Protein backbone atom coordinates (compact mmCIF):
# COMPACT_ATOMS: atom_id res chain seq x y z
CA UNK A 1 0.00 0.00 0.00
CA UNK A 2 2.67 2.43 1.01
CA UNK A 3 4.84 1.56 -1.96
CA UNK A 4 1.88 2.22 -4.28
CA UNK A 5 1.32 5.71 -2.89
CA UNK A 6 5.04 6.38 -2.91
CA UNK A 7 5.45 5.26 -6.47
CA UNK A 8 2.55 7.29 -7.75
CA UNK A 9 3.71 10.36 -5.82
CA UNK A 10 7.21 10.05 -7.23
CA UNK A 11 5.83 9.62 -10.75
CA UNK A 12 3.54 12.63 -10.35
CA UNK A 13 6.37 14.79 -9.05
CA UNK A 14 8.66 13.74 -11.87
CA UNK A 15 6.05 14.50 -14.52
CA UNK A 16 5.17 17.76 -12.82
CA UNK A 17 8.78 18.87 -13.05
CA UNK A 18 8.91 17.89 -16.70
CA UNK A 19 5.76 19.82 -17.52
CA UNK A 20 6.94 22.82 -15.54
CA UNK A 21 10.15 22.91 -17.53
CA UNK A 22 8.23 22.48 -20.80
CA UNK A 23 5.81 25.31 -20.01
CA UNK A 24 8.73 27.70 -19.57
CA UNK A 25 10.63 26.39 -22.59
CA UNK A 26 7.64 26.55 -24.95
CA UNK A 27 6.11 29.76 -23.72
CA UNK A 28 4.00 31.52 -26.34
CA UNK A 29 4.41 35.31 -26.61
CA UNK A 30 1.59 37.47 -27.87
CA UNK A 31 -1.31 36.11 -29.78
CA UNK A 32 -0.84 35.72 -33.53
CA UNK A 33 -4.41 34.47 -33.81
CA UNK A 34 -5.59 38.07 -33.35
CA UNK A 35 -3.76 39.05 -36.53
CA UNK A 36 -5.45 36.24 -38.41
CA UNK A 37 -8.89 37.25 -37.17
CA UNK A 38 -8.18 40.89 -37.98
CA UNK A 39 -7.18 39.90 -41.50
CA UNK A 40 -10.65 38.48 -42.08
CA UNK A 41 -12.62 41.44 -40.67
CA UNK A 42 -13.66 44.00 -43.31
CA UNK A 43 -11.86 46.98 -41.68
CA UNK A 44 -14.89 49.26 -41.92
CA UNK A 45 -13.99 50.56 -38.40
CA UNK A 46 -17.67 51.36 -37.89
CA UNK A 47 -18.03 50.19 -34.30
CA UNK A 48 -21.31 48.37 -34.92
CA UNK A 49 -19.89 45.31 -33.18
CA UNK A 50 -19.68 47.32 -29.97
CA UNK A 51 -15.92 47.66 -30.07
CA UNK A 52 -14.04 50.82 -31.14
CA UNK A 53 -12.67 49.39 -34.37
CA UNK A 54 -11.91 46.05 -35.99
CA UNK A 55 -8.73 45.24 -34.09
CA UNK A 56 -10.35 45.53 -30.61
CA UNK A 57 -13.14 43.21 -31.84
CA UNK A 58 -10.55 40.75 -33.13
CA UNK A 59 -8.84 40.78 -29.75
CA UNK A 60 -12.16 40.17 -28.03
CA UNK A 61 -12.91 37.19 -30.26
CA UNK A 62 -9.49 35.73 -29.59
CA UNK A 63 -10.00 36.09 -25.84
CA UNK A 64 -13.38 34.44 -26.16
CA UNK A 65 -15.23 37.53 -24.94
CA UNK A 66 -17.17 38.13 -28.13
CA UNK A 67 -19.09 35.92 -30.49
CA UNK A 68 -18.11 35.76 -34.14
CA UNK A 69 -21.45 37.05 -35.40
CA UNK A 70 -21.28 40.71 -34.45
CA UNK A 71 -20.04 42.24 -37.70
CA UNK A 72 -22.84 43.52 -40.02
CA UNK A 73 -20.55 44.92 -42.76
CA UNK A 74 -18.79 41.57 -42.95
CA UNK A 75 -22.06 39.73 -43.12
CA UNK A 76 -22.33 36.01 -43.57
CA UNK A 77 -19.07 35.74 -45.49
CA UNK A 78 -17.02 36.94 -42.54
CA UNK A 79 -18.94 34.76 -40.07
CA UNK A 80 -18.29 31.66 -42.17
CA UNK A 81 -14.61 32.54 -42.59
CA UNK A 82 -14.17 33.15 -38.87
CA UNK A 83 -15.96 29.89 -38.09
CA UNK A 84 -13.65 28.10 -40.48
CA UNK A 85 -10.56 29.66 -38.95
CA UNK A 86 -11.51 28.97 -35.36
CA UNK A 87 -13.10 25.58 -35.89
CA UNK A 88 -16.48 26.71 -34.62
CA UNK A 89 -19.96 26.46 -36.07
CA UNK A 90 -21.15 29.41 -38.15
CA UNK A 91 -24.08 31.19 -36.50
CA UNK A 92 -26.48 33.77 -37.95
CA UNK A 93 -25.67 37.47 -37.67
CA UNK A 94 -26.60 39.07 -34.37
CA UNK A 95 -29.63 41.15 -35.34
CA UNK A 96 -29.01 43.62 -32.51
CA UNK A 97 -25.73 44.70 -34.08
CA UNK A 98 -27.31 45.85 -37.29
CA UNK A 99 -28.32 44.51 -40.65
CA UNK A 100 -25.98 43.25 -43.29
CA UNK A 101 -25.94 45.51 -46.33
CA UNK A 102 -26.90 43.85 -49.58
CA UNK A 103 -25.02 46.37 -51.71
CA UNK A 104 -21.85 48.14 -50.62
CA UNK A 105 -22.33 51.85 -49.99
CA UNK A 106 -20.22 54.97 -49.65
CA UNK A 107 -21.22 58.51 -48.67
CA UNK A 108 -21.38 61.76 -50.57
CA UNK A 109 -21.37 65.38 -49.41
CA UNK A 110 -23.93 67.77 -50.88
CA UNK A 111 -21.63 70.67 -51.70
CA UNK A 112 -24.46 73.19 -51.66
CA UNK A 113 -25.05 72.61 -47.98
CA UNK A 114 -21.55 72.01 -46.59
CA UNK A 115 -20.36 74.78 -44.23
CA UNK A 116 -16.80 73.57 -43.76
CA UNK A 117 -17.03 72.80 -40.03
CA UNK A 118 -14.61 69.79 -40.11
CA UNK A 119 -16.78 67.75 -37.70
CA UNK A 120 -17.10 64.94 -40.23
CA UNK A 121 -13.35 64.97 -40.88
CA UNK A 122 -12.72 64.36 -37.20
CA UNK A 123 -15.24 61.52 -37.15
CA UNK A 124 -13.85 59.56 -40.11
CA UNK A 125 -11.80 56.58 -38.86
CA UNK A 126 -9.80 56.23 -42.08
CA UNK A 127 -9.32 59.94 -42.91
CA UNK A 128 -11.30 59.61 -46.14
CA UNK A 129 -12.61 63.18 -46.08
CA UNK A 130 -10.60 65.96 -47.66
CA UNK A 131 -11.07 69.46 -46.37
CA UNK A 132 -10.03 72.22 -44.00
CA UNK A 133 -11.86 74.75 -41.79
CA UNK A 134 -14.13 76.99 -43.92
CA UNK A 135 -13.06 75.07 -47.04
CA UNK A 136 -15.27 72.66 -49.01
CA UNK A 137 -15.21 69.09 -47.73
CA UNK A 138 -15.09 66.15 -50.13
CA UNK A 139 -15.40 62.42 -49.58
CA UNK A 140 -12.64 60.32 -51.16
CA UNK A 141 -14.99 57.62 -52.38
CA UNK A 142 -12.16 55.22 -53.13
CA UNK A 143 -11.13 55.23 -49.46
CA UNK A 144 -14.60 55.43 -47.89
CA UNK A 145 -15.48 52.20 -46.06
CA UNK A 146 -19.19 52.96 -45.71
CA UNK A 147 -19.10 53.07 -41.90
CA UNK A 148 -21.45 56.12 -41.84
CA UNK A 149 -19.79 57.55 -38.72
CA UNK A 150 -19.60 60.98 -40.40
CA UNK A 151 -23.36 61.36 -40.76
CA UNK A 152 -24.42 62.02 -37.13
CA UNK A 153 -21.87 64.84 -36.43
CA UNK A 154 -22.80 66.91 -39.51
CA UNK A 155 -24.73 69.97 -38.28
CA UNK A 156 -26.39 70.67 -41.65
CA UNK A 157 -27.12 67.03 -42.50
CA UNK A 158 -25.44 67.31 -45.88
CA UNK A 159 -24.01 63.77 -46.09
CA UNK A 160 -26.02 61.13 -47.90
CA UNK A 161 -25.48 57.43 -48.47
CA UNK A 162 -25.06 56.32 -52.08
CA UNK A 163 -24.51 52.82 -53.48
CA UNK A 164 -21.07 52.03 -54.90
CA UNK A 165 -21.18 52.42 -58.66
CA UNK A 166 -20.73 49.18 -60.52
CA UNK A 167 -18.86 49.24 -63.77
CA UNK A 168 -17.74 46.61 -66.23
CA UNK A 169 -14.47 45.95 -64.43
CA UNK A 170 -16.22 45.16 -61.13
CA UNK A 171 -19.28 43.40 -62.56
CA UNK A 172 -19.82 39.85 -61.32
CA UNK A 173 -21.49 36.98 -63.09
CA UNK A 174 -24.68 36.02 -61.23
CA UNK A 175 -24.80 32.67 -59.50
CA UNK A 176 -26.62 30.16 -61.74
CA UNK A 177 -29.83 29.29 -59.98
CA UNK A 178 -31.07 25.85 -60.86
CA UNK A 179 -34.25 24.69 -59.26
CA UNK A 180 -33.49 21.01 -58.82
CA UNK A 181 -36.58 20.42 -56.72
CA UNK A 182 -38.92 20.95 -59.64
CA UNK A 183 -39.47 17.74 -61.60
CA UNK A 184 -38.65 18.21 -65.26
CA UNK A 185 -41.04 16.92 -67.87
CA UNK A 186 -38.44 16.05 -70.46
CA UNK A 187 -40.98 15.10 -73.10
CA UNK A 188 -42.61 18.50 -72.88
CA UNK A 189 -39.34 20.42 -73.05
CA UNK A 190 -37.97 18.76 -76.17
CA UNK A 191 -41.27 18.88 -78.07
Amino acid sequence: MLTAILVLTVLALLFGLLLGYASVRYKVEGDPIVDQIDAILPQTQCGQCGYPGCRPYAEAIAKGEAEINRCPPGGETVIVQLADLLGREPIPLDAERGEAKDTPTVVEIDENLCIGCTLCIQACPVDAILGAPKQMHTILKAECTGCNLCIPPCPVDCIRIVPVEEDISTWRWPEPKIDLEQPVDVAEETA
Partner: protein
Amino acid sequence: MTDYLLILVSTILVNNFVLVKFLGLCPFMGVSRKLETATGMGLATTFVLTLSAVCSYLVDEYLLAPLGLEYLRTIAFILVIAVVVQFTEMVVHKTSPLLYQVLGIFLPLITTNCAVLGVALLNVQTEHGFVESALYGFGAAVGFSLVLVLFAAIRERVNVADVPEPFRGPSIALITAGLMSIAFMGFAGLVKG
Protein backbone atom coordinates in the same frame (compact mmCIF):
# COMPACT_ATOMS: atom_id res chain seq x y z
CA MET B 1 12.38 -8.37 -38.62
CA THR B 2 9.25 -9.86 -40.14
CA ASP B 3 7.68 -9.73 -36.70
CA TYR B 4 8.02 -5.96 -36.70
CA LEU B 5 6.62 -5.74 -40.20
CA LEU B 6 3.73 -7.91 -39.18
CA ILE B 7 2.99 -5.68 -36.21
CA LEU B 8 2.91 -2.66 -38.49
CA VAL B 9 0.66 -4.24 -41.11
CA SER B 10 -1.59 -5.59 -38.44
CA THR B 11 -2.08 -2.30 -36.62
CA ILE B 12 -2.36 -0.15 -39.73
CA LEU B 13 -4.63 -2.29 -41.88
CA VAL B 14 -5.85 -5.58 -40.54
CA ASN B 15 -6.73 -4.60 -37.00
CA ASN B 16 -7.10 -0.89 -37.64
CA PHE B 17 -7.85 0.78 -34.34
CA VAL B 18 -10.65 2.97 -35.65
CA LEU B 19 -12.42 0.87 -38.23
CA VAL B 20 -11.93 -2.64 -36.81
CA LYS B 21 -11.39 -2.19 -33.09
CA PHE B 22 -13.72 0.88 -32.98
CA LEU B 23 -11.49 2.83 -30.63
CA GLY B 24 -10.77 6.56 -30.96
CA LEU B 25 -14.08 7.38 -32.65
CA CYS B 26 -14.45 10.73 -30.94
CA PRO B 27 -11.65 12.59 -32.74
CA PHE B 28 -12.37 10.52 -35.82
CA MET B 29 -15.80 12.11 -36.16
CA GLY B 30 -14.92 15.43 -34.61
CA VAL B 31 -11.79 16.50 -36.47
CA SER B 32 -12.52 15.13 -39.91
CA ARG B 33 -14.32 18.10 -41.42
CA LYS B 34 -11.33 19.60 -43.17
CA LEU B 35 -8.35 17.85 -44.67
CA GLU B 36 -5.77 20.19 -43.14
CA THR B 37 -7.05 19.80 -39.59
CA ALA B 38 -7.28 16.03 -40.03
CA THR B 39 -3.65 15.88 -41.10
CA GLY B 40 -2.64 18.03 -38.15
CA MET B 41 -4.60 15.87 -35.77
CA GLY B 42 -3.08 12.74 -37.23
CA LEU B 43 0.42 14.04 -36.67
CA ALA B 44 -0.36 15.13 -33.11
CA THR B 45 -1.88 11.75 -32.28
CA THR B 46 1.08 9.91 -33.80
CA PHE B 47 3.42 11.84 -31.59
CA VAL B 48 1.32 11.24 -28.48
CA LEU B 49 0.63 7.58 -29.16
CA THR B 50 4.19 6.57 -29.86
CA LEU B 51 5.60 8.46 -26.93
CA SER B 52 2.97 7.30 -24.50
CA ALA B 53 3.26 3.68 -25.66
CA VAL B 54 6.99 3.77 -24.94
CA CYS B 55 6.63 5.60 -21.63
CA SER B 56 3.84 3.29 -20.48
CA TYR B 57 5.96 0.27 -21.28
CA LEU B 58 8.89 1.70 -19.35
CA VAL B 59 6.76 2.60 -16.34
CA ASP B 60 5.19 -0.83 -16.32
CA GLU B 61 8.39 -2.79 -16.89
CA TYR B 62 10.70 -0.98 -14.50
CA LEU B 63 8.41 0.45 -11.86
CA LEU B 64 5.10 -1.31 -11.58
CA ALA B 65 6.06 -4.88 -12.35
CA PRO B 66 9.08 -5.20 -10.04
CA LEU B 67 7.14 -3.64 -7.16
CA GLY B 68 4.12 -5.84 -7.79
CA LEU B 69 1.87 -2.87 -8.44
CA GLU B 70 0.21 -4.23 -11.60
CA TYR B 71 -3.20 -3.13 -10.31
CA LEU B 72 -2.05 0.51 -10.63
CA ARG B 73 -1.59 0.15 -14.39
CA THR B 74 -4.69 2.05 -15.46
CA ILE B 75 -3.98 5.02 -13.18
CA ALA B 76 -0.30 5.14 -14.04
CA PHE B 77 -0.94 4.91 -17.78
CA ILE B 78 -3.54 7.66 -17.66
CA LEU B 79 -1.02 9.79 -15.76
CA VAL B 80 1.59 9.16 -18.44
CA ILE B 81 -0.83 9.87 -21.27
CA ALA B 82 -2.09 13.08 -19.68
CA VAL B 83 1.47 14.35 -19.26
CA VAL B 84 2.40 13.51 -22.85
CA VAL B 85 -0.70 15.23 -24.18
CA GLN B 86 -0.04 18.34 -22.12
CA PHE B 87 3.49 18.41 -23.45
CA THR B 88 2.25 18.00 -27.03
CA GLU B 89 -0.27 20.79 -26.51
CA MET B 90 2.47 23.18 -25.48
CA VAL B 91 4.63 22.25 -28.45
CA VAL B 92 1.74 22.67 -30.92
CA HIS B 93 0.73 26.00 -29.38
CA LYS B 94 4.27 27.24 -29.89
CA THR B 95 4.94 25.89 -33.34
CA SER B 96 1.54 26.33 -34.99
CA PRO B 97 -0.93 28.60 -33.14
CA LEU B 98 -3.40 28.21 -35.96
CA LEU B 99 -3.45 24.42 -35.66
CA TYR B 100 -3.77 24.86 -31.93
CA GLN B 101 -6.81 27.12 -32.35
CA VAL B 102 -8.34 24.88 -34.96
CA LEU B 103 -7.92 21.62 -33.08
CA GLY B 104 -9.34 23.43 -30.11
CA ILE B 105 -10.70 21.12 -27.44
CA PHE B 106 -9.78 17.98 -29.37
CA LEU B 107 -6.10 18.35 -28.61
CA PRO B 108 -6.39 17.89 -24.83
CA LEU B 109 -9.12 15.33 -25.53
CA ILE B 110 -6.49 12.99 -26.93
CA THR B 111 -6.03 12.16 -23.25
CA THR B 112 -9.42 10.48 -23.24
CA ASN B 113 -8.88 8.87 -26.61
CA CYS B 114 -9.51 5.26 -25.83
CA ALA B 115 -7.12 4.23 -28.56
CA VAL B 116 -4.19 5.68 -26.63
CA LEU B 117 -5.03 3.90 -23.38
CA GLY B 118 -5.98 0.85 -25.43
CA VAL B 119 -2.53 0.67 -27.02
CA ALA B 120 -0.83 0.97 -23.64
CA LEU B 121 -2.95 -1.78 -22.08
CA LEU B 122 -2.78 -4.06 -25.14
CA ASN B 123 0.98 -3.79 -25.15
CA VAL B 124 1.05 -5.14 -21.62
CA GLN B 125 -1.55 -7.78 -22.36
CA THR B 126 0.33 -9.18 -25.35
CA GLU B 127 3.62 -8.96 -23.44
CA HIS B 128 5.42 -6.90 -26.06
CA GLY B 129 9.05 -5.94 -25.61
CA PHE B 130 10.38 -2.40 -25.91
CA VAL B 131 10.73 -2.18 -29.69
CA GLU B 132 7.49 -4.02 -30.22
CA SER B 133 5.64 -1.65 -27.92
CA ALA B 134 7.02 1.33 -29.76
CA LEU B 135 6.13 -0.12 -33.15
CA TYR B 136 2.68 -1.12 -31.96
CA GLY B 137 2.02 2.43 -30.80
CA PHE B 138 3.45 3.92 -33.98
CA GLY B 139 1.51 1.55 -36.21
CA ALA B 140 -1.72 2.23 -34.36
CA ALA B 141 -1.19 5.95 -34.83
CA VAL B 142 -0.38 5.58 -38.52
CA GLY B 143 -3.52 3.53 -38.99
CA PHE B 144 -5.53 6.14 -37.14
CA SER B 145 -4.06 8.98 -39.21
CA LEU B 146 -4.58 7.09 -42.46
CA VAL B 147 -8.23 6.49 -41.78
CA LEU B 148 -8.72 10.01 -40.45
CA VAL B 149 -7.28 11.58 -43.59
CA LEU B 150 -9.28 9.30 -45.88
CA PHE B 151 -12.45 10.07 -44.00
CA ALA B 152 -11.80 13.81 -44.04
CA ALA B 153 -11.24 13.76 -47.80
CA ILE B 154 -14.49 11.87 -48.35
CA ARG B 155 -16.39 14.12 -45.97
CA GLU B 156 -15.24 17.25 -47.79
CA ARG B 157 -16.72 15.92 -51.01
CA VAL B 158 -19.88 14.62 -49.35
CA ASN B 159 -20.51 17.98 -47.71
CA VAL B 160 -20.77 19.78 -51.06
CA ALA B 161 -22.82 17.06 -52.70
CA ASP B 162 -26.60 16.85 -53.03
CA VAL B 163 -27.27 14.80 -49.92
CA PRO B 164 -30.97 14.16 -49.23
CA GLU B 165 -32.27 16.34 -46.41
CA PRO B 166 -32.70 13.63 -43.74
CA PHE B 167 -29.14 12.41 -44.23
CA ARG B 168 -27.28 15.72 -44.10
CA GLY B 169 -24.59 16.26 -41.50
CA PRO B 170 -23.55 13.55 -39.01
CA SER B 171 -25.89 10.93 -40.49
CA ILE B 172 -24.14 10.64 -43.83
CA ALA B 173 -20.79 10.85 -42.03
CA LEU B 174 -21.60 7.83 -39.88
CA ILE B 175 -22.93 5.89 -42.84
CA THR B 176 -19.69 6.63 -44.68
CA ALA B 177 -17.65 5.50 -41.68
CA GLY B 178 -19.63 2.27 -41.60
CA LEU B 179 -18.97 1.64 -45.27
CA MET B 180 -15.27 2.29 -44.77
CA SER B 181 -15.30 -0.20 -41.93
CA ILE B 182 -16.84 -2.83 -44.19
CA ALA B 183 -14.17 -2.06 -46.77
CA PHE B 184 -11.41 -2.61 -44.23
CA MET B 185 -12.84 -6.02 -43.45
CA GLY B 186 -11.27 -6.97 -46.73
CA PHE B 187 -7.91 -7.04 -45.00
CA ALA B 188 -8.99 -9.75 -42.60
CA GLY B 189 -6.87 -12.84 -42.86
CA LEU B 190 -3.92 -10.89 -44.27
CA VAL B 191 -2.04 -11.39 -41.05
CA LYS B 192 -2.69 -14.00 -38.44
CA GLY B 193 -3.67 -12.37 -35.13
